[in-house]
């Protein structure tokens, strides 16, 4: 018994040594093949300072570099901006659950506006379909079906709940980010610095709404579909290995415009405005309508409000 064990051990060791050498050989081969990829390596973006540490002059330089690269890649007149927040503005979103018909026009308007990857497919908005009977005591997100496939919307006896980033006041995703790559702006928008995201996906685990999407593969966006109006913290094209999500269309709303999903909605179910302005549309619906937020028990305090119009 012990003899056979003694005889076996050195053989095992030999095997593992051979395995090691094989692995090392493969590693060296990878290194040898690496230069073709290194040529595409961008030292400047690798050593890019965190967005919030940049001075105005550095931001200009940064934007110009990003825009130049994208102009070469897409052949479009890319305008890269870093428009800042406006004083006295905190954004809020309202969605009329009683009106949404689940047609998914918002989803595709968002994809076009925000330069989401077409293949692999990335969508920032998910529309969940529920049985009307099952939501009489509120929406349990586990009951929702995001993959419903229908020719016409709405289907009989169904209700719909589109979900994207809730832009929480106490956002779990920003709290767990180890590099500070995601944070809440002064106007309440939760943004991501794609150069500082290391792809650890802690934020995705932390987000109770499943609003964050990871780029598992190299994003694929045809040059003719690129929206050239870009914000550095919003819809500029992402790379593999970073997390992305809804930014309230930061490139639009910081210029006073409505988000793209709102303008695409055929039934006018989507509302947007300044929570600090008592005359805004969002304040009106908060004060006059029955509203709710998703998973209030988690105390994330979303700024995305659902209401019954």
């Amino acid at each position: 018994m012990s003899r056979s064990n003694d005889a076996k051990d050195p053989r095992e060791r030999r095997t593992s040594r051979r395995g090691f050498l094989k692995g090392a050989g493969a590693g060296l081969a990878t290194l040898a093949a690496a230069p073709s990829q290194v040529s595409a390596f961008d030292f400047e973006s690798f050593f890019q300072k965190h967005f919030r540490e940049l001075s105005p002059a550095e931001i200009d330089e940064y934007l110009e570099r990003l825009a130049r690269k994208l102009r070469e890649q897409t052949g479009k007149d890319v305008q890269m901006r870093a428009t800042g927040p406006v004083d006295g503005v905190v954004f809020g979103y309202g969605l009329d659950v009683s009106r949404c018909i689940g047609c998914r026009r918002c989803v595709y308007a968002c994809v076009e506006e925000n330069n989401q990857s077409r293949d692999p497919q990335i969508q920032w908005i998910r529309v969940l379909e529920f049985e009307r009977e099952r939501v009489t005591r509120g929406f349990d997100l586990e009951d929702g079906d995001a993959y419903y496939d229908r020719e016409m919307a709405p289907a009989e006896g169904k209700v719909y709940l589109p979900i994207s980033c809730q832009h929480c006041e106490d956002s779990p995703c920003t709290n767990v980010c180890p590099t500070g790559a995601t944070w809440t702006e002064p106007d309440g928008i939760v943004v991501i610095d794609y150069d500082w995201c290391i792809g650890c996906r802690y934020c995705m685990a932390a987000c109770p709404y499943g609003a964050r999407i990871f780029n598992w593969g190299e994003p694929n966006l045809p040059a003719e579909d690129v929206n050239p109006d870009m914000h550095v913290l919003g819809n500029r094209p992402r790379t593999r290995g970073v997390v992305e999500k809804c930014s309230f269309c930061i490139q639009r709303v910081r210029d006073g415009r409505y988000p793209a999903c709102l303008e695409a909605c055929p039934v006018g179910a989507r509302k947007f405005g300044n929570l600090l302005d008592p005359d805004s549309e969002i304040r009106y619906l908060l004060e006059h309508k029955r509203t709710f937020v998703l998973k209030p028990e988690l105390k994330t305090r979303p700024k995305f409000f659902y209401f019954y119009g």
Partner: protein
Amino acid sequence: MDHLAPDRLSELGRDGSVSRISSIGIAGGAGHSGCSTALRLQTDERGDVTAPDGNRVDSPSPRQPVLWLVVGAVITGLVIFQAMYLTLGPQPASGYASRELPPQPEPVLLASAEPDEDYYPCSDCHEDEPTDRTVRALEDEHDELELAHGGLWCLHCHEADDRDLLHLADGIQVGFDESWRLCTQCHGEKLQDWRAGVHGKRVGHWWGPKQYQTCVTCHRPHEPRFAPIEAMPPPLRPDPARHVAAHVEEAHEPIE
């Protein structure tokens, strides 16, 4: 760094050696432990440092190496902490200039729905027709209209004496372009929401020029309930086989 209030600064800064320590602690942003160690030393009138129990500390004295070792360790720790804090800690946004909102203009009407060209102007036909006011099913003309609006009949809204106009409940005549006045006689709460921009769709700017629409842009007056519209395709389901294939391809690429 503004982590400590000025009064705290003055409290710490009476004595040269102590203030030197405390200033590092403040610069470090969280040097509370360092400050409390430093505060345990007190300064008497002659400027000599005494320990809290009243014993005079002979400084700098070779007989108290442990104390100075501790102070040195604290200073070193704070310097390291400050270096880490400055490198890794959150930084305020410096790249943003302060911006203010421009004045808000009034919403403007987006192109209103045009009256049906097949029929309008109504007077073309109805001018010479006698008016039959009896409520009946329409058979010769307008028979394609599905009247599904709370049991209303044509002349509840259309003006019998001038067919190119509508009329309110109190007989006031309104044009087709003001049909929302007619609708909101019954749907008053919708009027309030619509004026506030919460019922109906607005496009343009949340702050700035925006366009609104009237009732009949979206609702068919004779059959106001929305008809279902075409749904867009669902998202692709995650496909494990496809993912595995992609990774295999990727893993083999650099070796070849």
